[in-house]
């Protein structure tokens, strides 16, 4: 190109500049981003597109529609697990990782109540423990574990907690709630 590298005859502290044209690919890139932006604005900016809240709601509805039906173990199934040592061992792992910081590793109670006595604040049957673990008791600071743990983990920890009854660890918290003989 004949236009290339023609010096402009000005000089700033010895610095000179060429009169080179804008690189063509650069001009094309600039126009491309401008065209993209205009098109995008008409799609989303002024409301022809769905918008973020509508997108979110659609996403939630689609997930709900495709989610498998909740798989809640029946009291009989839980009772069957209560004698399965593998399940109990798995439950112990879940307990140590997630529950021990409030209920102490031996279940004797710390921030949360003692789980080894026969007094229960929210009911001591397998189904009731299962419900307390899943839904939590926000007013008492018990988080809902239904979202954090998988269904089989909740089952396992439920039967493990029930198995702690009568273990009488040292330094356990005083009994709270109703005594269930």
């Amino acid at each position: 190109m004949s236009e290339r590298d023609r010096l402009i005859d000005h000089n700033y502290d010895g610095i000179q500049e060429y009169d080179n044209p804008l690189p063509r690919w650069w001009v094309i890139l600039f126009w491309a981003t401008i065209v993209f932006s205009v098109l995008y604005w008409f799609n989303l900016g002024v409301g022809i597109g769905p918008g973020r809240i509508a997108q979110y709601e659609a996403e939630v509805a689609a997930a709900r529609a495709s989610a498998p039906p909740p798989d809640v173990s029946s009291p009989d199934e839980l009772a069957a697990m209560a004698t399965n040592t593998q399940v109990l061992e798995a439950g112990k792992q879940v307990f140590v990782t997630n529950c021990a910081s409030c209920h102490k590793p031996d279940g004797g109670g710390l921030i949360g109540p003692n789980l080894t006595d026969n007094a229960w604040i929210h009911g001591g049957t397998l189904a009731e423990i299962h419900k307390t673990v899943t839904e939590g008791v926000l007013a008492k600071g018990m988080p809902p574990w239904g979202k954090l743990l998988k269904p089989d983990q909740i089952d396992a920890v439920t039967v493990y907690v029930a198995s702690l009854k009568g273990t009488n660890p040292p330094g356990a918290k005083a009994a709270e709630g109703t005594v269930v003989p």
Partner: protein
Amino acid sequence: MGEAHGASASTRLDTFQYDDDVVRKFLFATVLWGAVGMLVGVLIAIQMAYPALNFAPYLTFGRLRPLHTNAVIFAFAGNAIFCGIYYSTQRLLKARMFSDGLSKAHFWGWQLIIVAAALTLPLGFTQAKEYAELEWPIDIMIAVVWVIFAINFIGTMVKRRERHIYVAVWFYVASIITVAILHIFNNLSIPAGAFKSYSIYAGVQDAFMQWWYGHNAVAFFLTTPFLGLMYYFMPKAAEGPVFSYKLSILHFWTLVFMYIWAGPHHLHYTSLPEWASTVGMLFSVMLWAPSWGGMINGLLTLRGGWHKVVDDPILKFMVIALTGYGMSTFEGPMLSIKSVNALSHYTDWTIAHAHSGALTWNGFLTFAMIYWLAPRLFQTQLYSKKAAEWHFWIATVGVLLYIVSIYSAGVTQGLMWRAFDETGRLQYPDFVETVARLIPMYWTRVIGGTLYLVGALIFAWNIVMTWRRRPAAYAVHEVQAAPLSPTYVPEPMRPGVDVPATAWGRFVNMTFHRTWERMPILFTVLTTVAVIVASLFEILPTFLIKSNVPTIASVKPYTPLELAGRDLYIREGCFNCHSQMVRPLRFETERYGEYSKPGESVYDHPFLWGSRRIGPDLAREGGLKSNLWHLRHFENPREINARSIMPAYPHLSTNDVDFAGIQRRVDVMVMLGVPYGEGVNNAPEQARAQAQAIGQDLASTGGRTGLESKEVVALIAYLQRLGVDIRAGSAKVASAGGAGGQP
């Protein structure tokens, strides 16, 4: 020397000297604060991998992270900018600085600000706005010193002896004007004590103003001044002409006008109105080409000189600086695209992006500039060229280790947050799992950052040794130049080059711009107008359109105790690691609950939405855990969660709450329009009563007695309130231990 554009041959020549003394001062300050800022960076990098290195109360991550960012941005890069501007402006305008007194005041004032920042940030004085953490007395000092700088600079332009101003000076003008506007309007606040203030904006508006400022701090503090420096020092070091004058004009004006709009891309999927988010994204996308204009003009200035790069460490630093600038200004537009941002936001990807730009573009350009300046300012040879080569290679390896590891960390965590398993549940519901996975990458980052610091220390040593070789007295060079004649004698619009005959041709050719270049005051005004007009397009609708922030009846102001707790949350810098903004994305609402609404933060002066989740979001934290859980968690997080990297805050359980001081804080909130109703006059009593209830709850559930007067109770009260109001709007949820009461 001695060219006399626009002056007749008979004009006498002025004889004068440049003020290099102030340039030398800024040079030393750059070297010193660079080492300090990077050292703090390495320390906080280690804290993330090894939390035991947090020393409460003063040296925890939450207080040191702002110290690191402020030190490297305003102390290291700031002094580098001033160093380069004072050196190049005098030479480009053929004039000594307007006033030696103002130059000195600028230098010492800026160092005083830095020292004040270094003291107040560890003490916990902060406005909780990123890169604008410094409290109001320091903000006023910054404004004063900046005005001194502006007067000194504009005064020099007025008394210049060069008719036209060069592109470097355009960039300096834009930076000086815009930083002043950004600083003043983002920091407007009402003091509630010597080092305590509340932003006059709340929630959505405060977030908008903060990221209008925050993004443009990147633009007008870390980009445009450095482009100006590049336009002076690159052709100087490469000893060749600048590639294209036309490209300079076009990329300057597009950059200045478009950068201002881009701020809202920091707030995608938040409660910011979607139109603002979209505008921010689109202007960011359109910024790609203008940014690359600067890179092209720099790199192509090296054409034909590539062989010099092999044995010149200065050019090596410059090439990596410009390449890094090109990479991060491609990545910026990419990250601003909403769907990409949904993955990257709140993760280390943003940190990687910031460092890929800062370590190369700002760091390497500064190193190059100072290696070039040192022999000239100290009037001797550089002490060791070999050490400069070593610095280059060590720092380059450091940058690579840093950004590769932190990119991996960001993408890893982002993908873990959004992963669902086959049953439609979150794959990693326990947040700490997504943190523990990053620890090896954090250690790699520590190695990379340490290498970069080692390079900076070699650099500092090399500069000091060069200084020690200076002559007994610096030679002061006499410069001669003709003063500008009072009347402008027309000269060719583009000397040496044909100018198109038609008006349209001259417009397209950008010949008209030459006229602006000889009127620096008009140039300054035009730049100011470009920046202000672009700002108002977004600011006015954000503040004036009511439907942007639909009110929620159940959202009430914080109780006096909760307000005091919120100030502790700010003091400890919790917002550096915890967001309070649940985005309308399914993986996010599954994890945290209902997405955040604009109406929820109407009383948040300042907003605390956060920008990084090193820990989980807290917007819905209220009522999820018992008071006792929080107490034990503050005293030792690892006792509750072995893999947590949160610092311990034992001092919260021993420091007393300043109950009497709460009244003044409530009063300021009332002044800002927060409806406290009749509670306005007995804030301390209300706070004591709520603290009593929480203290009793702690004692009765197995904590200690006597905590009702301690700071931890106020902070627990605040955390137990988060997200409670919006739940109360739909269903009654009892809150734990007397927290969440109404004022």
